[in-house]
C-alpha cells in the first residue's frame, strides 16, 4: 500500500496547485466572465463549425512516426543490456532497423511523404 504514497502526494500537490490558481484568479478578477463567445477569426463571425480533418499528408507522416515509435520501445531496454550481451545483440538490432528503413524508403518512393 505504501507504493502509492508518492502518487497520492503528487496528486495532492497537483490539486492544490490548481485550486490556488483558480482561487487567486477568482479573487482578483474585476467582474464576471463573458461566456458563449464564438472564436475570433479576424473580426467577422464564423460561417461553419471548424471541426474538420487534416490534410492526408499529416496522417502519412503520423504512420511513419508510429512505426519508429514502436521500434524505440524495443530499443530502450536493448540499450540497457547491449553492453553485457555483446556483438550479436548489436547486429540483431541493426538488422531490425534496416528492415524498418526499407519500409520507409518504399513509402518515400511511393510518394507517401510528399508534402505539397
Amino acid at each position, binding site marked *: 500500500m505504501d507504493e502509492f504514497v508518492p502518487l497520492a502526494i503528487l496528486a495532492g500537490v497537483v490539486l492544490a496547485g490548481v485550486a490556488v490558481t483558480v482561487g487567486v484568479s477568482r*479573487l482578483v*478578477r474585476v467582474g*464576471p466572465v*463573458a461566456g458563449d463567445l*464564438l472564436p475570433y*477569426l479576424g*473580426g*467577422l463571425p464564423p460561417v461553419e*463549425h471548424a471541426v474538420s480533418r487534416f*490534410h492526408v499528408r499529416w496522417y502519412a507522416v503520423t504512420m511513419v512516426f508510429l512505426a519508429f515509435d514502436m521500434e524505440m520501445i524495443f530499443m530502450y531496454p536493448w540499450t540497457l543490456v547491449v553492453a553485457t550481451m555483446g556483438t550479436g545483440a548489436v547486429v540483431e538490432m541493426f538488422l531490425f532497423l534496416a528492415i524498418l528503413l526499407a519500409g520507409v524508403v518504399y513509402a518515400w518512393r511511393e510518394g507517401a511523404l510528399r508534402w505539397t
Partner: protein
Amino acid sequence: MDLTDPLLRFAARVPHVLLVPVPGRPGLRMDTEQVVAHRGWWEATSPADADALLVAGRPGPELDAVVEHIWRRIPAPRIRVDLDDGGTAADLEVMLDSVPGSLADPRRARAEATAAATAADVTDHTDHGGGHHHDHHMDMPLPGGLSMADVAEDRDGLALDVLRLPLGPVLPDWPAGLVVDVELQGDVVTAAGARVLDAAGPGPAATRPVPTAARGRDVVARVLAVAGWPGPAARARDLRDRVRAGDPTADLAGLLRTVRRSRVLRLMLRRIGDGHGADVAGLLEQRLARLDAYAAGAAVDELQRPGPADLGARLAGAELAAARLLVAALDPDVDGAVAGVGDGQEDGR
C-alpha cells in the same frame, strides 16, 4: 478586493493595444504604430490579448460592425480610443496619456466587466441565426448552432471537408480593411476571394500620400514580422518612422545586410509561390533592391500593387501560413480600392 488595485496598476503600466487600421489612412496607421512603439507598449494580436482598442481613423459601416464585434470580445479592464480622420500624432499622444490611468481604475474596470458580460449574451445570437435553418438532417445540436462543413475532393482526389473561413480585417500585420474569404481543405487554401470593407461607400478625404521609401520599409517590416523575425521587423519599422520624420540616411545598409545574409529566412521563403511565377523570397529581394536603389539616389518608379480581385487567384493552392506570407509580400492596394469610388463626398458626412 485589495489584491485587485495593485495588480491593475501593475498591468496598466504596459497596456496591450489592439490597432484597427482604416483603409485609406496609411499615414495614420503608421503614426499610431510609431507612438505605441515609442511608449514601449505592446501591440496586441487579438481581442483576448488586448487592453485598449485603438481605431485609427473613422471607419465606414462595415468596418464599424467589425469594431463592435471586436469590442465585445475584449475583456475588462478595457478602454476604447477612437482617432478621428484628421488626427495627428500630437492628438494621439494626448489620448494615450489617459489610457494607463483609466485601465488602473478598479471601479471603471468592474463597470466595463459587467457591460461586457451582459452585451455578449444579447448580441451574439444574431451572428449565427442563419445556421439554424439549413440543417434539418442534423440530430445533434452543434456548439454555437453552426453547421458542419461540406465534403469535396481535395488536390489529391480524396474527400476532405471544405471549410469557409473569413480571414478578417483585424489580424496582426494584415492590410487595413482587407477580408480574404478562403475555402480551406485541411490547411491548404483551395479558393480565395479578397475584398476590402467599405469599398462601395464614399471614401475618406484624400490625405498626404506616404513617401515611397517609407512604404517600402513598411512592406519589408511586415514580411519579416509575419515570417517570425521580430528584431529586424522592428528595425525596419524604426527606419520607416525616421524616413517619415525626414531622416533618410539612417542605417539601412545594416538591416539589408542582416536580412540578406540569413539562410534560414531564405530557406523558409523560397518556394512559396503565387500562381504568377513569383515567390516570396524573390518578392522580398525585389523590395530590398528597390530600397537600395532609392537610397543610392536612383529614380525608382511606383511598384504595381495588386488589387483585391487579383489577390484571391494568387492565394489558391498555398498553405495557410504561406498565404499569410504572400499577402504580406504582395502588399495589395487597399487604399486604392477605397479611394477609387470616393470622389463624391469629402467630409461633412
